């Protein structure tokens, strides 16, 4: 395997981690917003 390919593998792995971080933060923000759509179960009937 060439040094260039090694370097590309390394950057792709780092990119993967950064993309996953953004995806996780987005999922957390969207989950918060999804709370708005769930009826409040603690409300008295």
């Amino acid at each position: 395997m060439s040094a260039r390919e090694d370097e590309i593998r390394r950057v792709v792995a780092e990119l993967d981690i950064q993309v996953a971080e953004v995806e996780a933060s987005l999922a957390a923000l969207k989950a918060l917003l999804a709370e708005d759509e769930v009826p409040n179960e603690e409300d008295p009937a």
Partner: protein
Amino acid sequence: MRALTDVTGENLRQWRESQGWDVPRMARELRKAARDSGEDVAAHHGLVRMIPQWERGNRVPRERYRLLYRQIFGSGLGDLSQGMALGADVALRLAEVRSRAARLPDPDQIRALEAAALAKPRKTMTPAEIRALAAAAIGHLHEVAGKLGELSALLGEDQS
């Protein structure tokens, strides 16, 4: 490209996602490839059910489906890896991660989500935590842009 006997369900998912295709699109592509080669395959809704099972590894696709996958992705992955002078596995991984990066929102869209999340009190997160989460997401987005630029430079792509 590897023989399809050593391809995992995860590979099938990565191949599909490297094209930005959802499962129904994958089903349509399989049916199109089958038509082109005169093969008889399951109906669209049957494929939509089977593809996730193959990708999760719950079931193994039969030979005729493995051949269709090779027909769809074989030449494309070969072209991709040859064009970049890379091994097919690196080219595939690169295409998959780039495809995910391309689907990320821009910083303004994250700020809009942050504002919507801050618009009401939340049970699970304080406003400071929400702000920190959005700031971290934007920070990682900048890192993504930097890494994409680094890759383009390594691949000798024109960034103008």
